C-alpha cells in the first residue's frame, strides 16, 4: 500500500489509488499494473516514465477505463471511475481525454480533418453548426494548422507530426480537464518532437489543462513535467521532481535509467552501462523488491521484504531499502 506520495484528497483532480490491472495469458495472469497510486493536481503535468513492459501504457488505459481493472480506485473530481459503468461512465469521459503514440492509425482514415475534430462536439451536442465550425477552425489554428488548407483533407495525406496535432485538436475540442498523453512524441523525429511538445505546453496554458504524460524518454519528461513517477515492472519505484530525478536519483533503477540516456556531447567520452541484463518477465516477478535481480546494492532484505514508498527529501519518494540519497 504505497500511498505516501499522494497529496490530500481535496487537492487532486485525478487520484489513482492502488490500481491493479491484469492480463490473462497462457502462462497465467500477468499483473501489468501492480498496486499503483498517483495523483494530478490542477494545472500540473505528471509524467510516468519507464521502459517497455513496465506497465505505463496499461496504467493509462486502466485510468481511462479502456481496459478493466482488478481492483483499486480512480477518482476524477471525487467520482470513482472504476465504480461507474454504462451511461454514467460515458458522461464522465469528456473530462478526461487521451492522445496516443501512433497518431496516424488512431484517426479514422475515412473522415476529413474537420469531421474528426468536430466529432466529439457533435456527439456531446455542443453548439450550433456555425459555432462548431468556428471552434474547429480555432482549434486547428491553435495547433498551428491552417484550417483552409487542412480541414477538407484526410489523415493519410499528413505526416506523423501533423496527425498528432490533429489528435490534440480533437482531444481538446470538448475541453477536458485532463489530457492523458501516451508516448505522444516517441515515433517522431527530434525536430518534429520539439514542435509537438511546444504545442502541448501551449495548449496546457491556454485551456488550463492538467496532463498525465506517459513516456520512456527521461529527457522529454524532464523538459515538460512538474512531477515524475518512475515505474519498473508494474510498480512505482520513485516519485520525484524532474530536477532531483536527474541530479540526485534515489532509486538505483532511476540512476541506471538516467545514466543510460545518451548525451549529445562527445567530450564526456563513452559512459559505461550501469546495469546489465534486462527486466525479468512480469509473469513471474522477483520476490521483495522487483529490481533486486539487476540492482548493484541488493541485499537479503530486498528479496524478503517489499520496499514501500517513503519520503527521503521534500517531494521525493522512493521505494528502496538502500536508497542512494
Amino acid at each position: 500500500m504505497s500511498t505516501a506520495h499522494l497529496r490530500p484528497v481535496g487537492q487532486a483532480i485525478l487520484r489513482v489509488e492502488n490500481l491493479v490491472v491484469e492480463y490473462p495469458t497462457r502462462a497465467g495472469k500477468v499483473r501489468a499494473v501492480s498496486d499503483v497510486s498517483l495523483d494530478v493536481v490542477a494545472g500540473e503535468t505528471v509524467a510516468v516514465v519507464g521502459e517497455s513492459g513496465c506497465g505505463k501504457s496499461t496504467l493509462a488505459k486502466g485510468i481511462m477505463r479502456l481496459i478493466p481493472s482488478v481492483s483499486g480506485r480512480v477518482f476524477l473530481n471525487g467520482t470513482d471511475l472504476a465504480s461507474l459503468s454504462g451511461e454514467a461512465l460515458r458522461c464522465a469521459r469528456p473530462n478526461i481525454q487521451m492522445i496516443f503514440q501512433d497518431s496516424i492509425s488512431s484517426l479514422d482514415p475515412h473522415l476529413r480533418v474537420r469531421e474528426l475534430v468536430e466529432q466529439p462536439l457533435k456527439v456531446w451536442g455542443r453548439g450550433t453548426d456555425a459555432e462548431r465550425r468556428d471552434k474547429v477552425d480555432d482549434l486547428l489554428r491553435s495547433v498551428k494548422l491552417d484550417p483552409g488548407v487542412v480541414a477538407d483533407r484526410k489523415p493519410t495525406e499528413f505526416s506523423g507530426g501533423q496527425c498528432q496535432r490533429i489528435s490534440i485538436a480533437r482531444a481538446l475540442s470538448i475541453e477536458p480537464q485532463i489530457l492523458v498523453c501516451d508516448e505522444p512524441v516517441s515515433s517522431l523525429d527530434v525536430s518534429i518532437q520539439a514542435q509537438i511538445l511546444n504545442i502541448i505546453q501551449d495548449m496546457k496554458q491556454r485551456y488550463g489543462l492538467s496532463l498525465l504524460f506517459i513516456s520512456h524518454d527521461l529527457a522529454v519528461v524532464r523538459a515538460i513535467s512538474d512531477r515524475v513517477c518512475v515505474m519498473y515492472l508494474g510498480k512505482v519505484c520513485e516519485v520525484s521532481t524532474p530536477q532531483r530525478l536527474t541530479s540526485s536519483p534515489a532509486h538505483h533503477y532511476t540512476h541506471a535509467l538516467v545514466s543510460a540516456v545518451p548525451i549529445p556531447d562527445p567530450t564526456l567520452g563513452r559512459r559505461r552501462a550501469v546495469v546489465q541484463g534486462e527486466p525479468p518477465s512480469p509473469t513471474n516477478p522477483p520476490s521483495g523488491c522487483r529490481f533486486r535481480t539487476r540492482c548493484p546494492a541488493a541485499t537479503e532484505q530486498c528479496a524478503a521484504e517489499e520496499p514501500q514508498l517513503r519520503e527521503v527529501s521534500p517531494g521525493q519518494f522512493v521505494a528502496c531499502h538502500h536508497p542512494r540519497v
Partner: protein
Amino acid sequence: MTEVFRLEDLKVQFATRRGKLNAVRGVTLTVRAGECLGIVGESGSGKTVMWRAAMGLLRGKKVTRTGSVRLGDVELLTMAPKQVRQFWGTEIAMVFQDPMTALNPVRRIGSQFAEALVKRKGMKKEAAMARVVELLRLVRMPEPELLVRKYPLQLSGGMRQRVMIAMAIACEPKVLLADEPTTALDVTVQAQVLELLSDLRETLGMGMVIVTHDLGIVAGHSDRIAVLYAGEVVETAATKDLFANTKMPYTQALLNSIPRLDGAPGDRMQAIDGAPPDPVSETTGCFFAPRCNFAQDKCRNEHPELVDDGDGHAYRCFFPLGGRR
C-alpha cells in the same frame, strides 16, 4: 589508417507514379579500418536507402543507382547480385534495426546461426555449433549453451539484437554497418548494446558505420560524423569538432531540438519549423533554406557545394556559423 569502404558520388533514384524520386543525391563517404563513422539524419533523409543501395540489397527495375561503391579494391555497384553475395558476411556485414523480423522465427538460434558458418566458412556442423556458442559468449549472452536450442520469439529484443551482432561478426568482416541498431531497444539495453559494438570494433579492428537519427548515440561512440539532409551530406567532421565547431545551421538546429538531461527544465523546446523538401520535385538553392533562420537570397537561388576548410571539416553552406567560406 587504411580505407576499407568508400562511397563515391552515390546517387539513388526511385521511379514512382509521381515521377523520379531522388532519395540519395550524390554522397561521398569513406570508412577506415578500426574507425566508427556515424551517419545522422531524420526520417526521409536517405540514410537507410543509401546503405541498402550500397550493399546491393536495394535494386531492381525501379531503382537507379549511379556512382561508385568500393569495398577495398572491388567495385560493388556494377557487380552481379550473385557475386556481391560472396562479400556479405565475410567482408561487409549488416545489423538491422528490427531484430524481431531479421531472424527466422521457425528455426532455433543455433541452427540458423551455424548454417551461415557452414556455408561461408565450410565448417563441419559440430565445429560450427561450438563456434556459435563461442560467439554468443563474445557478445555477452548469458548461458549460450542453452540459448542455441531456443527460438527467436523466446528471446527479448536486446538478446535478439545481440544474436544479430554475433551473426554479423561471425566471419570477421572488415566493415560492419549498423542501421539504427538500438532504436527498437530500451535505453538501459541500448547503452549495453552500444558499449558492446564499440568494444567489438576495438578488439576486432573493424571499420564500423552507425546509422542513426540520434546525435546523442553517435556523440559517445563515433570518431567521425556525417549529417544527412534530403539525400545529401550537409556537414561532416571529426565528432568532437562537429559538436564544438558546428558550421551548418541544420546541424545546429538538430542539436538544439534534442531535449537534454542537463538542460533547464520547463524551457521551451527549439523546434525546426517546416518540413524537408519533397524528394520528387526539383528544388533549387539550398535544401534547408526554407527552414533556415540565416537564409539569404543566395541560399534560395544557388545550391551550395560541400566544401572543406582544409581541416577535414566540410559543410554545405554559404554562410556557415562562426564564419569562413
